[in-house]
């Protein structure tokens, strides 16, 4: 009488609801967060190609609920039909873009050069400057990270005015170098710490000088760390707004300042703002996609000991 109606076939037995549920949950959360991370970027890119009615109606998918137009790029003078015509906005934009590039690259280069030498020195030799020993010197450099920019901003405003460095690239480069130097030292100290000292000992015994051993043997090994430090510096200096807003007015203005100065006055020209923001983030988005490995390496440095 008690006949079993349902039998568990082999297929049914291999089905693990728990496991599938877990997978589903994990991918669900990951996809939702990826959406949260990427949607603002997507929104900015599409808004670049929207006309006013499309913005008002909240159309989101191009070619499906709106037809892309060249409005955003046209306002910057970069659309196909304006690119060969004289355009003041484009001149301005390119100037700011160029300023940002020069400032970010030079300050990152200087910071990486100074920082790797310092980190190397601190990881290899024991110094004594008065009461300062190696760990104190390390702390002296790393503690600069705590210093909020606002403390330096106003004194620098006055100092630069006296030194005629206000609104110059060199002034900004010096300050930016300072802001990223502790981070570079932090990353590079980690990097050099993982390279065995025996390498230089062998090189020195073989007759290389100290600086030559550093340049030809240690630096190539530490290259991944150097690239990581450089890219992170690049990201921070490219995005820096506070000092640039205070210390530049016309000549050395950087891209973030230009973006910020547009937000107030042209709130309605959505496409042009979107194009500008997009141009400001594009280089870093590309760097992020291509060099993600190094960025992660840099940020993970020092987290694990």
């Amino acid at each position, binding site marked *: 009488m008690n006949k079993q109606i349902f039998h568990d076939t082999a297929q049914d037995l291999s089905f693990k609801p728990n496991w599938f549920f877990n997978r589903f949950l994990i991918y669900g959360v990951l996809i939702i967060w990826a959406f949260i991370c990427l949607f603002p970027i997507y929104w900015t890119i599409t808004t670049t190609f929207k006309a006013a009615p499309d913005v008002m109606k909240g159309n989101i998918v191009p070619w499906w609920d709106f037809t892309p137009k060249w409005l955003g790029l046209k306002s910057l003078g970069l659309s196909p039909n304006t690119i060969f015509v004289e355009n003041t906005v484009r001149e301005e934009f390119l100037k700011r873009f160029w300023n940002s590039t020069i400032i970010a690259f030079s300050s990152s280069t200087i910071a990486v050069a100074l920082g790797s030498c310092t980190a190397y020195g601190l990881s290899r030799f024991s110094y004594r400057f008065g009461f300062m020993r190696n760990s104190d010197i390390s702390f002296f450099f790393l503690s600069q990270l705590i210093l909020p920019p606002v403390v330096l901003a106003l004194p620098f405003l006055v*100092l630069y005015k006296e030194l005629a460095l206000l609104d110059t690239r060199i002034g900004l480069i010096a300050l930016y170098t300072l802001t990223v130097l502790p981070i570079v030292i932090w990353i590079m100290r980690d990097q050099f710490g993982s390279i065995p000292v025996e390498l230089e000992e062998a090189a020195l015994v073989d007759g290389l000088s100290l600086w030559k051993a550093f340049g030809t043997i240690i630096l190539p090994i530490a290259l991944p760390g150097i690239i990581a430090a450089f890219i992170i510096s690049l990201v921070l200096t490219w995005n820096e707004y506070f000092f640039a807003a205070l210390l530049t007015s016309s000549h050395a203005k950087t891209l973030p300042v230009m973006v910020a100065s547009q937000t107030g006055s042209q709130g309605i020209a959505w496409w042009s703002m979107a194009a500008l*923001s997009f141009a400001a983030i594009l280089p870093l988005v590309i760097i992020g996609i291509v060099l993600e490995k190094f960025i992660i390496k840099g940020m993970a440095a020092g987290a694990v000991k």
Partner: protein
Amino acid sequence: MSASEGNYLHIVMPDQISDTRRNFGRFIIWGSAVLLILTVLLQSLDQSNFLSFGFENWRPTLYAYLFWAFCLCLGQVILYGEQGKRRLFILPAVLFVISVVIFPLIFALGIAFSSWNLSSPDGRQFNGLANVYQMWSDPFYWNALKNMIYYTLAILFEYIIAFSLALLLNTQIRARKFFRVAFLMPLMLSPVAVSWMIGKSMLEARFGPISRLARELGWENPSFFGSHEMARAVIMMMDAWTFIPLMMIMILAGLQAIPKEMHEAADVDGAPPWKKFWEITFPLMLPVSITAILIRIIFKLKLADIIINVTSGGPGGATDSVTSFIFREYRDRSNVGYGTFLAIFYLIIIVILMTILIKIADKWMRPRY
């Protein structure tokens, strides 16, 4: 901090330094120092209208300083040979930091106790403790400090989200690289662009996509910057959006450093996942977590760009951070003296609190037996 002690390069290089070389080394260091002092003297005399040399700015002093710094570095090698070359590794950075941090800080102390309106012709006027009194009775500054506490407390939520994301990324998943890049993106974006992209356009009350979504969900008139609490929460969320990747990656690096054997042993013992997390993963992650949180606090204390660009402190100072407050204080009234005093006061608070925090963290991070 002292992990690498004792891992030094122990090689002694022979050095013969002749007397003429030593004298030459001393000569260039002291010679350039005298040159620097002379320049400073001449310039200050010129500045106080004692004598007139027609200096337009302090550039000559800057050049003299750079020359002295260069001679000092060169002199190290000439004077001490091999030992000097070792010093040369860190000397430039030390000189650089001293000249752009320590010197301006001392200078800032001088400015902090004066009233100095950059746009007025009177110049700097020493006003003693007037700035202290002004600060004491400035409700907006205290309000900004209070906001900083809220903003810092928000880090706990960021930490929880970052930890969960790192745990998810650490499981066996497909397309891990895609998710890593996607999660990293917010950190790469310029805060100014973010404040337009999210703060000004996506949160726009009438047709921003988020307001639209809020309306769909049944919120009649979504206004994100209307009430104090809401505005503050939105700023916190935008800042969290930018900086969660930083914590997430540090924690992920920590998770990947946990040896697999630990989990295998727990599996053999039949520990449920929840227990495995609380008794193995979390305690092992404590040092990394504390480092991540400390670094996050440091970045949080500098929070300003988003606030300046999205709300400029409003409504009624509800979203003001100290940095954005001082920024506006300078922009609106161009009073360098008062602004500097506020900044110095903030710095002192930060240094004290961070020292205490690092001390506590140090105690926690040490393994207990």
